């Protein structure tokens, strides 16, 4: 805007000779006012270009940071919570059936709380996916991968929303039949459990895996160098041009300082420092959030998922009681995955969170209780094995392990939230600030040079 206002009146003043020749000959032949006009145009265009590039860089990094904080991390956390709640509901249902007789009130309340938690989280995740789909349509947002991931996650969420009521209905039927003393209740519980393991849990873990992948790539984009480095180089280049221009002006106009160019240079310097500073602060915070927040939280979450599955296997082996040890085999497979030992999930917890010692101790205690439980069951003492699973050693040691893992997730989640929000805040208002600075620069150049031009009229 500024450029057209400043330049347009001077178009009429051009000499016919200058209009005919090439630009170099025009420049050589040009008088000082013509050179001034050219310099004005170049400076205004460069100022505007700087504004655009700096604003683009700011909005790209800012929206990637916002994506990390506002979409991917909450979504993966929701998915993890859905998985945790549903697995726990499965175990609570199985244990209520194992116990026989009147369902313990605590087990019933735990199941109800799990279902409520799962439903709330599914709803929150659905709302998030909706808002992130809307956000991807805004200009300047990273659109290369978000839509594809969003729709797959949307399908998973649709499965969760549609099948959770079916699951709850089947568990309700199982409970009613159990109260009547009918073995049909066990069949409904089996059906519900296979629905949970066959459809609901895979959908939740799929969302978790996708959002964690997206989190990592969004975080890499927010903290990556290419665009910001390009913007900073352009900024320095413009600063150099401004400096040379003011030197040239000083020589040709015999005035030490051109205040217009000085204002432009100041605005440029402020915007450059602001951009670099915001990036440095945001990057530090986001990297900290990742290294001390989301990475250890994910390691804990993976261990939690494996432990929950092994725990359900323990109960199902007791319920199935068939000598067909498919569930026990799965328990052993999960145990191998979980560790402790090199290359296991617990090793990852230890590596990322530093202190994995208490988790390893908890897990070993549970393995010992489980081995004792299996020995009792295989030795014909099914009742004692049941007692251990429901309220004895196995139940107690698993409860401790589960609490430790949940605390690990929550603590690192809090670290992530605090740091990542700080990182996101660093980019707040940055793009608008860059545009404002560019406008000040363009105005400064136009004002400063047009005053010199006026002296030639």
């Amino acid at each position, binding site marked *: 805007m500024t450029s057209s206002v400043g330049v347009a009146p001077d178009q009429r003043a051009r000499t016919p000779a200058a209009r005919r020749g090439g630009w170099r000959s025009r420049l050589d032949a040009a008088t000082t006012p013509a050179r001034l006009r050219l310099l004005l145009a170049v400076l205004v265009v460069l100022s505007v270009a700087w504004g655009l590039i700096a604003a683009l860089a700011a909005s790209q990094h800012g929206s990637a940071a916002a994506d990390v904080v506002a979409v991917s991390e909450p979504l993966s956390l929701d998915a993890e919570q859905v998985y945790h709640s549903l697995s726990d509901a499965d175990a609570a249902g199985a244990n209520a*059936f*194992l*116990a*026989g*007789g009147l369902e313990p009130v605590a087990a019933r309340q735990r199941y109800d709380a799990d279902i409520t938690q799962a439903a709330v989280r599914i709803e929150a995740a659905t709302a998030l996916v909706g808002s992130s789909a809307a956000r991807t349509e805004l200009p300047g947002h990273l659109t290369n991968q978000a839509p594809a991931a969003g729709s797959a996650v949307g399908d998973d969420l*649709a*499965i969760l929303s*549609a*099948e959770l009521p*079916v699951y709850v209905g089947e568990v309700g039927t199982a409970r009613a*039949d*159990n*109260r009547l*003393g*009918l*073995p*049909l*209740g*066990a*069949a*409904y519980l*089996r*059906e519900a459990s296979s*629905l949970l393991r*066959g*459809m609901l849990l895979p959908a939740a873990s799929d969302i978790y895996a996708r959002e964690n992948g997206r989190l990592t790539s969004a975080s890499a984009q927010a903290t990556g160098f290419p665009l910001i480095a390009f913007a900073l180089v352009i900024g320095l280049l413009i600063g150099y041009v401004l400096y040379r221009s003011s030197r040239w002006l000083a020589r040709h106009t015999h005035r030490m300082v051109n205040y217009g160019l000085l204002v432009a240079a100041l605005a440029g310097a402020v915007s450059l420092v602001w951009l670099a500073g915001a990036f440095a602060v945001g990057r530090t915070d986001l990297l900290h959030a990742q290294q001390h927040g989301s990475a250890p939280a994910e390691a804990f979450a993976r261990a939690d998922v494996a432990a929950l599955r092994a725990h359900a296997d323990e109960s199902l082996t007791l319920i*199935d*009681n*068939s*000598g*067909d040890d498919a569930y026990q085999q799965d328990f052993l497979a999960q145990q191998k995955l979980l560790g402790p030992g090199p290359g296991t999930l617990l090793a990852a917890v230890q590596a990322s969170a530093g202190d994995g010692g208490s988790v390893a101790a908890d897990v070993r205690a549970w393995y010992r209780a489980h081995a004792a439980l299996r020995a009792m069951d295989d030795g*014909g003492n*099914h009742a004692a094995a049941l007692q251990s699973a429901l309220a004895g050693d196995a139940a107690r040691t698993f409860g401790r392990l589960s609490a430790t893992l949940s605390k690990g997730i929550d603590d690192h989640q809090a670290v992530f939230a605090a740091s990542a929000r700080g990182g996101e805040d660093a980019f707040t208002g940055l793009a608008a600030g860059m545009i404002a600075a560019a406008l000040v620069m363009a105005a400064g150049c136009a004002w400063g040079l047009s005053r010199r031009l006026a002296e030639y009229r």
Partner: protein
Amino acid sequence: MSRRLGTARRTWLRGLLPVLAVPALVLGGVAAAAVPGRPNAVREGSAAGAARPVSAAACHPKASSLSPSGPPVVTSGSFMARIRDRGFLIAGVDQNTYHFGFLNPVNGRLEGFDIDLIRAVASALFGDPDKVEYKAISDAQRIPAIVSGAVDIVAHTMTITCARLQQVDFSSVYFDAAQRVLVLKNSAARSLAGLRGQEVCATAGSDSLARIAAAGAVPVAVPYWTDCLVLLQQGNVAGISTDDSILAGLAQQDPWTKLIGPPLTDEPYGLGLSRQHPDFVRFVNAVLQQLRADGQWSASYARWVGTPAPAPPPAQYGG
């Protein structure tokens, strides 16, 4: 959306069918000799020790067992003595068939007509009916569990058939059942033939599956009988076809069902035992003989199946 997912889920359930139907047809089918590999393995096993050779003569399912020699006695060096040394009997039972073998959700215990028989055998062995480790097995697991020695005895509404006699031994007949059909109260079908082209449920490993297919209906195989009732209640199958004894137990769990059609087959139940231990077969038959004589069979029948209790099936032996 929910409709599409619902269809997908039913398809997923049905996906079990081809997998489960194959072993079902093998075990319940006409001749085990038609299966390559398996009969050889059995023959090698039965050639060892004091095992009972597979008779090539004409097969009489109801008169195939070994006669007892007097009351049940645990002789030294016998299989019974080995069980007693172990401290408990290992029994393969059903935990899902109402009134034959089911886990009572109210007290958490296995109960039923089949369970009563196991308790009687444990009493004869140990003087204590509770010295039993129950393994809840599915229909398809019955013969493998006996052949591998994972269980000592199977009490699991198991019909004595010539095909099964190639692989395992049976006690004398303890119950006479017949295959019929269970449908919802509002069904127009009056027999299995009336369900031609529709889906009918039975368990994998039961001999009912093959007969459903033979009647022109589409067999759907699931692990347990109560799973069939779940499918019927959810409208995924048109009927359930198996022994009337099992169907009566299902009908008692859902008053909106009815038994239809004439008895299609004769299903004599026996306790499944290994061919490796003829001494144990005779011992179990001696226990059954006592139950028939002292009125325990009738008392158990009256408690679980219905009153008045008929006369117990007469014991016939083939050796």
